């Protein structure tokens, strides 16, 4: 069954807890070629777009939802907004909860608006990640 406007409002359970590590921050900063000293040392913070690492687990809960009929290789990221309360820090343990906000079907593709809330296990909101994805229908690409 394809994704439709009726899936707006669908909310997935929080992703498994994710512990932000200094090693993963260093790996991510290196992948961006970013040597900002804030990302190293004894109390590193994560690069702002590191939130995508945690969001991706939440995005997968939607991409893998059999009721939506989505295929990862036919999904393109349309836009992305991050809103930060504070930076992620090494030692934070967080999880991410995705809500499908809006679905539009346009010809051979679906336009999916979603938001992910990244919170500590204690319930402190750290960041919100809002994304739009374009999903091309099979055979119409």
């Amino acid at each position: 069954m394809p994704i439709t406007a009726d899936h707006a409002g669908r909310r997935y359970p929080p992703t498994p807890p994710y512990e932000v590590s200094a090693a993963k921050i260093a790996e991510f900063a290196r992948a961006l070629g970013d040597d900002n000293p804030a990302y190293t040392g004894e109390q590193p913070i994560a690069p702002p777009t590191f939130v995508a690492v945690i969001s991706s687990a939440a995005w997968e809960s939607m991409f893998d939802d059999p009721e939506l009929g989505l295929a990862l290789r036919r999904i393109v990221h349309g836009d992305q907004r991050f809103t930060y309360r504070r930076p992620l820090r090494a030692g934070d343990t967080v999880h991410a909860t995705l809500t499908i906000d809006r679905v539009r079907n346009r010809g051979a593709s679906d336009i999916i608006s979603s938001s992910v809330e990244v919170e500590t296990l204690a319930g402190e909101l750290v960041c919100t990640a809002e994304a739009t994805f374009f999903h091309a229908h099979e055979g119409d690409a």
Partner: protein
Amino acid sequence: MASLEIVAVGDRLPGLSVRFTRETLVRYAGASTDFNPIHYSSFYADQVGLPGVIAHGMLTMGSALRLVTDWIGDPARVRSYFVRFTKPVVVPDDADGTEVVFGGVVEAVDDALVTIAIEAVSHELKVLGAARAVVDLAE
């Protein structure tokens, strides 16, 4: 480094140029855990009608923000960040890869909140649209 006393609307940030190769994409795939095959496999990129293997949008987005965090120094001051992925950044399987050039200009100053409009250009095409970062330069 940027400070609130000297920042004014219209100020241009120091430019930044990066080069994405297939190695960059593989490294970012591993670091970000985004293993969508259109970012490393010509076979799958062709299958969905892309002109070639493309960079992760998030890699371009993350790289563009360096323009801002290099300027403000402390990345913890970033309050929000938006981009639209307008054109794919095609990354050929060769030694040179693809260059992406970033530029930024101060668009608004509202108390301590400074909005920066970011441009990202690759092969003379704008690859990000409506890109804005808001940073808090309060003491």
